[in-house]
């Protein structure tokens, strides 16, 4: 399950920010900010992607690098939101 999520995230970041298909262009744990992959407006594109692809909404408090700044953190964030939704509807 996480692997599919990670795959979709990788594809998005490679295509949308790096404009390439080459998987070696990005490591799962690389900081987007440090790489210069996204700037402060690029964050909004991530948020839109999370909403469109995974139905996840990001609150103001959640809008930080610990959730959004790498493939790994994004995957983890989506999983935890998913778990929360499941827990609430249980």
């Amino acid at each position, binding site marked *: 399950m996480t692997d599919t999520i990670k795959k979709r995230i990788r594809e998005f970041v490679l295509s949308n920010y790096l404009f*390439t298909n080459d998987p070696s262009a990005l490591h799962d744990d690389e900081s987007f900010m440090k790489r210069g992959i996204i700037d402060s407006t690029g964050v909004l594109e991530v948020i839109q992607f999370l909403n469109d692809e995974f139905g996840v909404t990001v609150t*103001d408090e959640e809008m930080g690098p610990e959730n959004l700044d790498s493939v790994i953190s994004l995957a983890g964030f989506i999983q935890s939101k998913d778990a929360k939704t499941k827990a609430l509807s249980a």
Partner: protein
Amino acid sequence: MCGIAGILGLTSGPPPQTSELVAMITRLRHRGPDGEGIYSDRRVGLAHARLSIIDLEGGRQPLHNEDKSVWVVFNGEIFNYIELRPLLEAQGHRFYTHSDTEVIVHLYEQYGDDFVQHLNGQFAIALWDTRRRRLVLARDRTGIRPLFYTRTASRFLFASEIKALFACPDVARRLDPQALGEIFTYWSTLAPRTAFAGIESLAPGEMMAVDEHGDARRHRYWDWSFPEHATPPARPVEDYADELRALLVDAVRLQLRADVPVGAYLSGGLDSSIIASIIKNFSDTRLCTFALTFDDAEFDESAHQYELVQYLGTHHTSLRCRSADIATAFPRTIWHTETPILRTAPTPLMLLAERVRAENYKVVLTGEGADELFAGYDIFKEAKIRRFLARAPQSRWRPRILERLYPYLTHSPANGRAFTHRFFSEGMEHRDQPYFAHIPRWTTTRRSWQFFSADLTQQLVDWDPYRRITAWLPPELSRAIPLGRDQYVEAHTLMSGYLLCSQGDRMAMAHSVEARYPYLDHRLIEFANRLPAQLKLRGLVEKFILKKAVHGLLPETIRQRTKQPYRAPDSGSFFHNGRPVDYVAELLDVKRIRESGYFDPLAVTKLMEKCGRGRAIGFGDNMAFVGILSTMLVDAMFIRESLGAADWSAAGTPRIPTRASRVFN
């Protein structure tokens, strides 16, 4: 106003041919539709295309001194010609016209190369001294009027626009890779470099003398300078405000001088509103204003424009610019800019100049320069904040003041606080460098480099933006106060390199309109540069002293209004229902991209897809798209000439299936 061109035959070569001078000057007809003139002797040819503004009957060029030993062609206005003339006549000089041009030759007779110090105006001058056998070129202090030159084996050529140089078959046409590196970082090349290899530009405030052997000497006769120490205001604030007001009124007075009607551009913001108000309150000129409106609320300022129109009672014309209009007019824009650009903002200004002409106006006063002089832009506030952060990098409360910026953008970078903090922390190790303020902008712009081809990337492998700019800036700039350093860099890169040319001169001249810039009166620049920093940027309030100086001249809502920089819709304009318009699809086609060699075909394709889906909401992607498209247009028009000059004349653009209609007010 006007176009100039010329040829200096070097000693080994043939004399200049009239036919060639005609070929050059014909390319500048949009700059001077009212007539042409040529001077030639066995060494030099001077050509002039006239836009008649002062001395409509008599002021034809080329123009000469009493005994015809000195000849001149010039583009621009000498605003203080009325004051200079009696002084020169008292020194024994005899005038045969009523033009402003003529003071140039008499000042040269009187003062030699120092003639330029006496001029208050905007100008690109070419002067031929037949006795001393030298060609003197001079450009105004801020680069309002352009002047390009190049050398071939047997001659030295100059012109107002590069397209006139390209009329000569021996002039090579090639893009300069270093230029692309500079444009996709600083938004313009650094003079004397231009987009084209071998073509150079005289810098603002610079003069050059060339002899008939081709030896050239250049020097800067004027530059911006700032204090080296922060000092508190020596006088009461009201004193400074009064002096500024008087200077502003005088600058406008001088720049209203014309034998044709003069109008004013209105953006809705403070700077142009001030100009309009001064015209209304301090002159007899009938106030006619012109403004752009946009369908997209993110760019539109019409509410503020109309507020001022009501307040002053102007005769107002507004032009609604629709997103599709930009795509239609963009190729013609690049025909005039002659360089890649990163925003579409020039295009609506070109359309506005067309409207101005349709109303039979040839001259407009505009508000450019005020932001550079009085610290109007956000970049100055950002730099102040970043220096503040740098003094205590671990502080948790200092970053909170970041939230007070950017009220105007829908997609504001103030969301995502931590990302914003990171953005502002960029480049802290450079905090004492004169370019510190510009690091975030250049970093964002340089994201476009990921679209460069492998070949171009390789050619730029040793290129460093900070090393390059440091080599270009004057060494003494490091000693200026921080705000002064920021202002200097901004004025010399964005303003002189992009705003005044690609957005200013080229767009107005596309429709034979002369734009004038009262804020760039050099007396005003010198006054503003001497001011203590806190009179310009007080806390985070921009243009403090300017707002004070104009109290009572404007509605309070406009006087107190926060800066909204002029912007136009970008990449979205070039797509209809997710598909690129015809010429865009053609120019950005994979094969063509690969063949021309500047950009990476796959990356460009992906960018196109992103833009087509409407997902390119950030500055970086939009700059890259516009930059790539404009580079491919430059390549098509100037390097390959696959689309001829006639296709880009004022009449229209080729191969656009439907022409969006403009709604006129």
